[in-house]
């Protein structure tokens, strides 16, 4: 179904693209590809806020546009190619699943510049960018360990890809740094986006006695359940305080705007180079929403941890860390390298789940 929707959207966008091309021939075109809608209240919206910042900042020099609801997979290639043909100078493809499509189109259009979000494949005109979400999730884990009355939390997870597994592990690391007996339950819903199913998962966890939930899916439905049932939860991608004024402890918020501005500026200055960027709390592509609904000492601890991660004093994956089965992974003082993190396919000790393969 999405294919049809996309075909319609793509042709509509192409028509708009051509009609405005003549009017703004002297402006540099910067284009975005979203996996969801630009008002999804989560991941894609966060990218769109970044786009709007670019548009505002370079209003007289740059024209931005986007294609939304583009399905991951072969169709994405057509969407990205269409943008490349329509005169975009720089294309940001924002979802992991656009990786191979972006690589293919980048090879076909050597003069167009590409940046792929959260992926790892690069080229002479193709860079990657990502955010160290796990830094924020470590703080969430610490807060959860201080907040939960029964030494545990539940993690509503989408798909068992390295990015998600890394987040689960970082959360557990944070929790265990406070409470070594902390148990993390993981519940896979096998979707990024299904408010009903996400809510069902949250309800199931609450019914089983969990009092803190966190999510790596895209809608505010779990937060809403937490609010209705009187437990605590963490927001994901966007500040979800509106859905959980009494439930949200904090949220990890994607803030791409500064990164996008920096890259567009480089494009305009002619200094753009394909790079692999993996920024975090320090560079501000990831920010923490206000620490709410918690005692002052927990808030103080969270702020201290945040400061330590920003200064580089604390790395969430610092040994000694054992894998889930008890075998050693990192020696005391040893830090995980980026390559291992980006390909993470195992749990650390304390995660109460069997990782789906």
């Amino acid at each position, binding site marked *: 179904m999405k294919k049809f*929707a996309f075909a319609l959207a793509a042709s509509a966008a192409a028509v708009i693209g051509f009609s405005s091309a003549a009017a703004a021939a002297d402006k540099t075109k910067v284009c975005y590809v979203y996996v969801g809608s630009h008002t*999804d*209240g989560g991941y894609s919206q966060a990218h769109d806020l970044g786009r709007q910042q670019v548009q505002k900042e370079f209003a007289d020099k740059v024209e931005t546009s986007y294609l939304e609801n583009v399905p991951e997979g072969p169709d994405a290639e057509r969407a990205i190619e269409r943008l490349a043909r329509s005169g975009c100078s720089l294309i940001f493809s924002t979802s992991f699943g656009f990786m191979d499509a972006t690589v293919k189109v980048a090879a076909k259009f050597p003069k167009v510049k590409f940046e792929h979000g959260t992926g790892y494949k690069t080229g002479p005109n193709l860079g990657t960018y990502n955010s160290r979400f796990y830094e924020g999730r470590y703080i969430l884990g610490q807060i959860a360990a201080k907040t939960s009355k029964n030494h545990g939390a539940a993690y509503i997870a989408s798909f068992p890809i390295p990015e998600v597994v890394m987040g689960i592990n970082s959360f557990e690391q944070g929790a265990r740094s406070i409470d070594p007996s902390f148990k993390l*339950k993981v519940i896979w819903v096998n979707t990024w*986006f299904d408010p009903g199913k996400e809510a069902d998962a949250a309800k199931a*966890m609450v*019914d089983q006695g969990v009092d803190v939930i966190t999510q790596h899916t895209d809608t505010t439905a779990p937060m*809403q359940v937490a609010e209705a049932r009187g437990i605590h939860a963490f927001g994901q991608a966007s500040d979800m305080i509106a*859905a959980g004024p009494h439930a949200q402890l904090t949220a990890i918020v994607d803030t791409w705007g500064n990164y996008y501005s920096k890259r567009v500026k480089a494009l305009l200055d002619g200094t753009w180079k394909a790079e692999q960027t993996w920024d975090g709390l320090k560079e501000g592509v990831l920010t923490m929403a206000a620490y709410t609904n918690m005692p002052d000492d927990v808030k103080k601890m969270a702020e201290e941890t945040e400061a330590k991660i920003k200064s580089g004093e604390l790395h969430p994956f610092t040994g000694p860390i054992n894998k889930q089965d008890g075998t050693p992974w990192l020696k005391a003082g040893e830090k995980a390298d980026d390559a291992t993190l980006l390909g993470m396919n195992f749990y650390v000790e304390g995660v109460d789940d069997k990782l789906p393969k």
Partner: protein
Amino acid sequence: MNIWEAILLTVITASTPLVIAALGELVTERSGVLNLGVEGMMIIGAVAAFVGAQLSGSPYVGILCGIAGGAVSSQLFAFLTLTLVANQVATGLALTLLGLGVSGMIGEGYVSVPGVRLPEIAIPVLSDVPVIGAVLFRQDLIFYLSIVLLLGVNWFLFRSRAGLKLRAIGDSHTSAHALGIHVIRTRYLAVMFGGACAGLAGAQLSLVYTPQWVENMSAGRGWITLALVVFASWRPWRVFAGGYLFGAVTILQLHAQALGLGIPSQYLSMLPYAATIVVLIIISHNRRTTMINTPASLGKAFVPER
């Protein structure tokens, strides 16, 4: 509240939209019209209900808006397929696409606005009965409506004269026409009923299930109801049972994961679909009765002789 009551409540919330939309589609298909636009009508119902409830402050106005949204969008389909004799499959698909797009446009300003929750209505005396009281008689209006719908549709189709005529049209529109039954008019009404039900199901999504609006929030539930109707061989009680079975397995697999039974989550996610199909195939295995229940004119265009 013990855990079983809690699970039952969650199952009811998950199953109700499937049952409502499927009962509506069942009536539409029994009249011989295949409307694949359930997903589109459902999402229009969801956004209409949400916006209606926001503007009026009353979830009951929201329900009415949801029903109206579904019914109005279904009439577009009816006009194209019944009056202009367009292809039903293609028009149904187009209705889904249109619904997803239009709902996104209408709802653009309502994303992440806190929703209005439909309140529960406790039925006196019955709601105090242990276990089932809390589960069945302290529910919201849409759940009660779903039960009324089940009984009503069953009575209408198999006990009323109008229902007999509707089924006759579904089985052979030419014969029904020759007998003087208004084929097109009846089909318009049947399509409208299906649309109203899909709209009501959408209202349940945005007022009860997850009281909020996000684009595509129906997330494929319209397609599940279409499959339910076919696998239940167009019988209301089977549709009802199938919808609840699907909902129950969906919720239980989440609990099974949380208990850590060690079954890979991909299999568990597949389970609701597999279980529902297998069970409904088994209860519909009698070929003769299935043939009788299948509307023979389903999806065929009707052009009255002049």
